[in-house]
Structures are given as C-alpha cells and as structure tokens.
C-alpha cells in the first residue's frame, strides 16, 4: 500500500510536469500515467511534497473518499507508514530520474514532431505532378550570363520579385532580406548553401547596370536577374506572380508595377518549401529558413557548396 501510494504520488507529479497542453504525445508514450485517475493527479499535484504527513493524510482521504470512516482508521498508522516510505525503493533520486527522463523524452519528441511537421509540409509540394510554385526559366545575371532554374539547384534559394522604381514595399522587404542573409550566413558559417535572388518584374527599366547599383545598397550577396519581357513574364508565371508590367513603354514614361510581396524559399531540388511574407520579422524568417537547411543537412541530402 505504502509504496504504491508513493508511486502514484510520483506519477501524479511527473504527469503534471509532462502533460504540457500542446504535447499530446506524452500521453501516447506514457500510457501508464493514465492509470492514475484525473482526480488523483490533481490531488497529488496539489500535494507538493508527498512525504509530509499532512499531505499524505489528505491524499489518503481523497483516495478513500468512498468510505468516510476508513480513512480515519488508516491515518493512525501514518508514523509507521512514513518510516517505511523513507526506506522504500522510491527515493527522491528515483523521482528525479523519472522526471528528468520524462522531460528529456518530452523535449526529444517535441523536436522530432516539429521536424516531421516541416518535412511533411516540404514533401507536400514534391512528388506527383508539377510543383505548384517555381519551374524552369531562363534569365540573365548582371554580367549578362545566362541564368536558368538549374543554377538554383543544390542550394536553398530565396527568391524575391520586385522592381527598382518600387516606392516603399520592396525597399523595406529588401532591407529585411539583407538582415535575413546575414543571419543565415552567420548560422551556416557562410557555407554557400543559401542563395538570395532578386528577379525584376520591370525589365524595360531594370537593366543589369541599374539592378547592380540598386541591389548593392541592400546586400552585395543578392543575385540580381533580368531578361527580356517574355522571359520575365514566363518566370512570373512559373512562380505564380501577378505580372502587370506594360509591354510597350515610352521612353521616359513613369509607371508602377504590381508584384508579389512574398519571398519564396526553394529547396535544393528547386521545389517550393515556404513563403516568407510581410508579417515575418528577420528573426522569424531566418529561423524558418535555418530549420529547413538543417533538416536537409541532417538527412544527408546533396548540396552544392561552392
């Protein structure tokens, strides 16, 4: 009786520690915790130290609340009970071990659960059929060299669409992009796994020279891409970006371009994994990106680090 009571007490405490609301798996891994009923859990968790006579007494009362007289009869032997308890197999060390193991498992399963969830999301855009966002394209980089979707493979690319005459949103977002680049670079020790890309939606005005000057002000690591009107229209279509650039622009004509305000994170297979939007801070965005990069590395999948 005494040891089972203490065990129940310990489980009660452990259950209290482990049953953090969002962690549903604890119930699955430790089903025996369920053997102590809900009311007992509550009773023992209120009793912070089950060793104290007062708490055991009240616990006993609760335990035997079916018959009121029996609890008083048993309470007489509390002294003996206490003595036997102190020499029983369940010491504070055992309790500590139990709680630590529980906490360790909890942390492990939580991390695993988060990882699998990310993997599931990343896998969703793979598999059968064409990926929903992204696809083949041909553009040219700022040195005039051809740049295709193949050049994005082997790295985590971070694609943004914009134009240099953008009034306020693009500059804000590009400042954010610069912060994200620095954070990711720092965390990955600059192993070239991360490739930030800026694709202009306004090829008529954004020549390589203009683009280079513009991007230099934000971050030297951003790869600027431009192309012909048709090429840009195609890449916008591939990335499901609304394209409203006028086709025939008069020299000197001033206009604005509608464009997507999202960053697209693409994995080394060039499949879409995540959207980073206006609501994301540089901190939250770089955390999401690093999680994906680390998952990929942990699984030992191929990367192009050059």
């Amino acid at each position: 009786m005494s040891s089972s009571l203490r065990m129940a007490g310990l489980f009660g405490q452990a259950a209290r520690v482990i049953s953090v609301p969002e962690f549903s798996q604890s119930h699955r891994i430790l089903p025996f915790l369920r053997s102590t009923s809900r009311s007992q859990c509550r009773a023992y968790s209120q009793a912070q130290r089950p060793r104290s006579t007062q708490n055991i007494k009240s616990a006993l009362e609760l335990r035997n609340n079916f018959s009121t007289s029996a609890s008083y009869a048993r309470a007489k032997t509390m002294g003996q009970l206490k003595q036997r308890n102190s020499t029983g197999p369940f010491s504070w060390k055992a309790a500590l071990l139990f709680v630590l193991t529980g906490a360790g498992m909890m942390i492990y399963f939580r991390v695993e659960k988060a990882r699998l969830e990310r993997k599931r999301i990343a896998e969703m855009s793979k598999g059968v059929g064409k990926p929903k966002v992204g696809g083949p394209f041909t553009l040219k980089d700022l040195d005039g060299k051809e740049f295709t979707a193949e050049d994005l493979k082997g790295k985590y690319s971070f694609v943004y669409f914009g134009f240099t005459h953008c009034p306020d949103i693009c500059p804000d977002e590009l400042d954010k992009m610069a912060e994200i680049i620095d954070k990711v670079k720092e965390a990955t020790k600059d192993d070239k796994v991360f490739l930030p890309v800026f694709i202009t939606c306004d090829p008529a005005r954004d020549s390589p020279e203009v683009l280079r000057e513009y991007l230099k002000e934000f971050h030297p690591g951003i790869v600027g891409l431009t192309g012909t009107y048709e090429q840009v229209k195609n890449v916008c279509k591939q990335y499901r970006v609304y394209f409203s650039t006028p086709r025939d622009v008069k020299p000197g004509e001033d206009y604005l371009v509608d464009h997507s305000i999202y960053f697209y994170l693409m994995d080394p297979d060039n499949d879409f994994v995540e959207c980073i939007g206006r609501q994301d801070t540089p901190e939250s965005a770089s955390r999401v990106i690093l999680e994906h990069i680390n998952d990929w590395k942990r699984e030992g999948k191929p990367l192009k680090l050059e």
Partner: protein
Amino acid sequence: MGWLPWSSGGEPNKASDGGRIAPDRTSRKRCWEGRDIFFACLDRNDILDGIKDDKEARRKCAKEVEEFEAACSATWVKYFKEKRVMEYNRDQTIARIKKEDAATVQELKSQGRSTSN
C-alpha cells in the same frame, strides 16, 4: 546627390546600358520624409484624400505639397496619396468589424445568461 530625375522635368536618368536609374536610398528617404510632412499637414487640416481634395490640400499645405512633389516622382506621389486613403478605409473596416464582433459576443453572452437562468 547630384541628380533628381523628376525635379528637373527633363530626361529621366538613363543608365549607360539603356536602363533607367531608380531613386537610391538617400532620395527614397527624402521622398518619404516629404510624404510624412505633407500627410501630417493633411491630418492637421482634416483632409483625407489628397487627390480628390487636391485644391483644398494645395491651399492649406502649399509648402508641404510642393516639397513632397519635388522629392518624389509623380507616380510615387499618386501611389502614396491613394495608399493613405486605402489604409484609412482599411483601418476603419477593421475597427468596425471589431466593434461588431464585440457586440455579437455581448449578445451571445446575454443570450447564454438568459437561457441558463
């Protein structure tokens, strides 16, 4: 900062490879400052729409509007004026929805109370 493609009214700044140079960080900042000063003036005079109430705005904030238009290109000026109206309407809508939600919650609560009694 030797150039301002729109203030001169002449040829916009051309890059040597045919592109058109966009405002850089400094001129963007100056444009945004001009905008903020102009909008603060509109706020003081209870004017929301700088396009619809253009005459009124020009009369009451003559200096501010002049500086704003000098610091930003015409499309940006139009964009910012439209954005101001759009954001005002958006905030009004959000406030209205919140109020309606609160009223609905209140109503449901009072219904719950009357049924439980």
